[in-house]
């Protein structure tokens, strides 16, 4: 009896020791065609990237976009209203698929269907997606915007925070506007070390490591009124990490671009589990096939005097 109790106790104890090993690498790989393309109304040039996806692999290997391009894909773009099909071909110099003819100009407010098939990891895959391009009418309104230059984290005479503000004329039917910032003068030297950022106090080595990430930032506004009119979007100071010039591109994006942008990077929940992003791609594809109109302005962040 005593031995039995001892064995049970040891069983409990040994079961409750050790490490739960969970090896996710390689066990769940599902080949997909990665679609990465946006149509630009008014443009005659089509640039759509097709790549393969990667199995999980934590061996430190670096990947580059050029490593993953699918060169054997069969793809076409269809103007849905006119049932006109435009075959896409691979451009080896620029790594994207394009239409080589001259009879295609992407229109505003039109629906286009992308179809692609390819062999990935020995598996024949196909995918399709449709985008409806934004309507005309979108542009930044420089006169109503707060642009040019401003001291970092400037305050007005009352102590209220001043910000760059971009006012724009909305694209009717579009409710998603993405404002991307690229710090053109980003460097270890131009980083704003003082005043110390509210989130992070890096040293020069930290900045050097994360320079690429810090160079780009963005702000969004969603669910704006669908009719024509004017809205605005502020550039928050926590989006600017460097002194110097910034290129600010404001996009009016379609539903595909909107849902991809809002969900692609937010698939891990608070309890660590994953969920599917909203991609609007049928079949064996992931990524985004969207459309957007853009307008560009420049702003400059100055050191405090």
């Amino acid at each position, binding site marked *: 009896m005593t031995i039995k109790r001892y064995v049970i106790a040891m069983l*409990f*104890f*040994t*079961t*409750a020791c*050790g*490490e*739960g090993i*969970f090896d996710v690498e390689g066990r*769940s*790989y599902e080949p*997909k065609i990665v679609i*990465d393309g946006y149509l*630009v109304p008014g443009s005659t040039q089509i640039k759509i990237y097709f*790549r393969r*996806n*990667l199995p*999980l692999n934590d061996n*430190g290997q*670096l990947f*580059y*976009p050029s490593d993953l391009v699918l060169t054997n894909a069969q793809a076409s773009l269809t103007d849905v209203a006119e049932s006109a099909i435009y075959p896409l071909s691979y451009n080896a110099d620029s790594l994207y698929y394009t239409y080589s003819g001259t009879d295609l100009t992407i229109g505003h407010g039109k629906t286009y269907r992308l179809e692609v098939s390819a062999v990935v990891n020995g598996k024949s895959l196909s995918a399709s997606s449709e985008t409806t391009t934004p309507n005309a009418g979108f542009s930044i309104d420089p006169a109503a915007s707060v642009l040019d230059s401003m001291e970092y984290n400037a305050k007005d005479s009352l102590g209220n925070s001043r910000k760059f503000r971009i006012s724009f004329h909305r694209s009717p039917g579009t409710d998603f506007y*993405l404002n*991307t910032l690229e710090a053109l003068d980003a460097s270890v030297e131009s980083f704003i070390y003082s005043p*110390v*950022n*509210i*989130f992070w*106090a890096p040293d020069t080595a930290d900045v050097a490591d994360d320079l*690429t*990430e810090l160079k*780009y930032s963005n702000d969004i506004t969603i*669910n*704006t*009124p669908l009719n024509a009119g*004017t*809205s605005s979007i*502020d550039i*928050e100071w*926590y989006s600017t990490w460097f002194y110097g010039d910034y290129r600010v591109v404001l*996009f009016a994006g379609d539903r595909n*671009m*909107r*849902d991809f942008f*809002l*969900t*692609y*990077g937010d*698939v891990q*929940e*608070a309890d*660590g589990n*994953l*969920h*599917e*992003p909203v991609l609007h791609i049928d079949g064996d594809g*992931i*990524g985004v096939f969207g459309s*957007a109109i*853009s307008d560009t302005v420049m702003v400059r962040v100055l050191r405090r005097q």
Partner: protein
Amino acid sequence: MYRILLILSLLFGTNLVSQTQPATLNGFVYDASNKEKLIGANVILKDTYKGSSSNVSGYYVIQNIAPGIYEVVVQYLGYETFKQTVSLAPGQEKWVEVYLKAKSIESDEIIVYGDSLPTIERLFEKPVSKIELSGLEINQIPQIAEGDLLRSLQTLPGIVPLSDFSSALYVRGGGSDQNLYLIDGTDVYNPEHAFGLFSTFNTDAIKQVEISKGGFGAEYGGRLSSILSVTNLDGNRENFEGSASVSLLSARTTVQVPINDRISVSGSIRRTYFDKTIGQAIDAVPDYYFYDGNVKAFIQVDERNTVTVSGYGGQDVLNFVFNEKSDDKAGFHVNWGNQTGSVQWTRVFSPKLFGNFWITGSQFESNFNFDESFEFTDRNYISDVTLKGNLEYYASDTWTFHFGFEEKNLHGIFRQTFPGGRVDVNARRRHYAGYFQSNWMPTSRWDVETGLRFDYFDSDRDYQNLDPRMTLRYKLTPESNIKMAAGVYHQYLHRLPRPFFVGIWTSSDENQRGSAAYHFILGYQRDLGSSVEMELETYYKKYRNIYDLNPNIITAVEPAYFEDNLPVYTSTGGLFNKGQGRSLGVEMLLRKPTGPLTGWLGFSWAHTEYAFNAINQGNAYPPRHDRTVVVNAVANVEIKNTLRKIRGRPTKRDKSSWSLGSNFVYSTGQPITVPGSYYYIRTSPDGPYSLPVYPSEINRFRLPYYARLDLSITYRHEFRHWSFEPYLQVFNVGNRKNVWFVDYSTGNSADGGLRQGIKTVNMFPLLPTIGFNIRF
């Protein structure tokens, strides 16, 4: 005519066909030491088949007694048997109050005496799938830092947590919002402190906890999976009594004060203090604390009327600065908490008619504010004012009717402001319910309980439902019982879980219907002797119209209107994915509630699957809380008396003693979704490249098994008027690295290359804690 009289007799208990006026015996059963009412005490007339058990208010009644002289015998687990001779005249309604003296907790001799309450009788009277725990049992289970009610319940078969970091309960496959939490009859909506790490219930103030894991009667509604009812101490009406405890987490004290022989007051207060201790020394420890307190007054108005007034209040406070080195010291302030209050009137209208009536109020509010660096505020509020009554009509020896009503007035506010718009939800709802339940014992071996509950939920769109409930209990042999229960359950409130923030309660409306569940339970109970009881239950649950938070909510919500061109959201549309599901399982509980060795061994096998319209292409999948096999072993050993038992000597209460506590849990790993792949993509038409993950089939894989052993050692020394109990607890003694989840990240190189990062995140490591309790 005779048949009509017989039916009337059965229905209303009036023995119309009898020539002799029968007598009635009734009263309350109390703990003699403090005059706390005892629930479930067995009251019998010796040498007859007549008997009763005290209800949730401690009231008992025995009817249709032939006039004569009887010996009343009252038994209750852990108490000395009460005996009193009574003489009953024809038609007499005799009131006998029973005061039971507690035995030493270490004694297990209760099953030896012939007149003691048999274990099997106690099990028979217990409703299907219901488990009761005392405050003492909860405090004896080793935990993180100190005893915690909800974490203790997670050691019972059929109740699982999501992780070490959550005190939320998942009962028989149901979601965490499908449990009704009642404290002294009052709903508690978000019973959690420290972002769910601890529950709001102060275990020192608890008199008894009952959890019904399914098949509950028509008295309860509004939730699909379980009812957790916490009864706090009424207060000692005999002597001043108190306790104080200090753990690494908090300091707390409870006092019970007799005002006179009719009125007592009890109160508890607790506050965490690591913000004042290690928080002062270590910057990484956030400026966080919580406090809570209970107060309860018990007033014995007269023999047949009592009034109980109780209240609870708690608050969590967190002040957080993102970067202490920054010039702006920007951060946020968040506070949240519950306040509840109730007045309960208990009245014995007649020996046959007993009633409990409540007016309760419950409120939860959280407020989140960034400082001026961010334009963000968040207010989450729900209040509930309820009027309800439960009545019991003891129609005859064999027939009891329960009926009652409930009116809930709910008010929910959720307001959030942010740079791109705001959320403004302000909703008032009413929930009316009525129920009728019949308990019929056609023979001494059968108990048939049938009930019907009606719900009317007054919302944007109204919902009405009629829920039938039934329970059958049968004494199979002198050592075993069989039970069966089935019922339909509806729920009209849905909790929207949020990371970091406390969840938001929403209600059924034009977008969300009421959820439904169907329970089917079959149980077997057996007295194994030596005060060991076994319960075996199998269940099947089916869910309809259940709701799960839409993880891509941001793509689905639509503004109700615009204000200065900014969207204002007022609707619940898009918040949830709608689905259905089913759970089935087998549970076994071996429990030894008395003696120097107490505890339980639980085993459960379960399978749950949900299917939601927008998840996993609509295919069924196991939810994250599904566990196929769970084994729990909880034990508390009082060492000296255990050794005495082994040597065949009688046990006794010592001035000083050592106790060992243990809690072992093993469970199959949780389902988890792992990435099907990484993929390279631009984040915008002109943006940089990113390497996000794309999930594979939802919850197709399972984490490694979960196992943990917690131990505690407690020394107790009793002085003349007080006792001192220092303790050491070790959580996760084996320091097993139980996997919580896997974190996926991306690293980049200066030339634009990206690499994958995969890191396993574990739950709590070995955590030793110390503390002490003082009782006086």
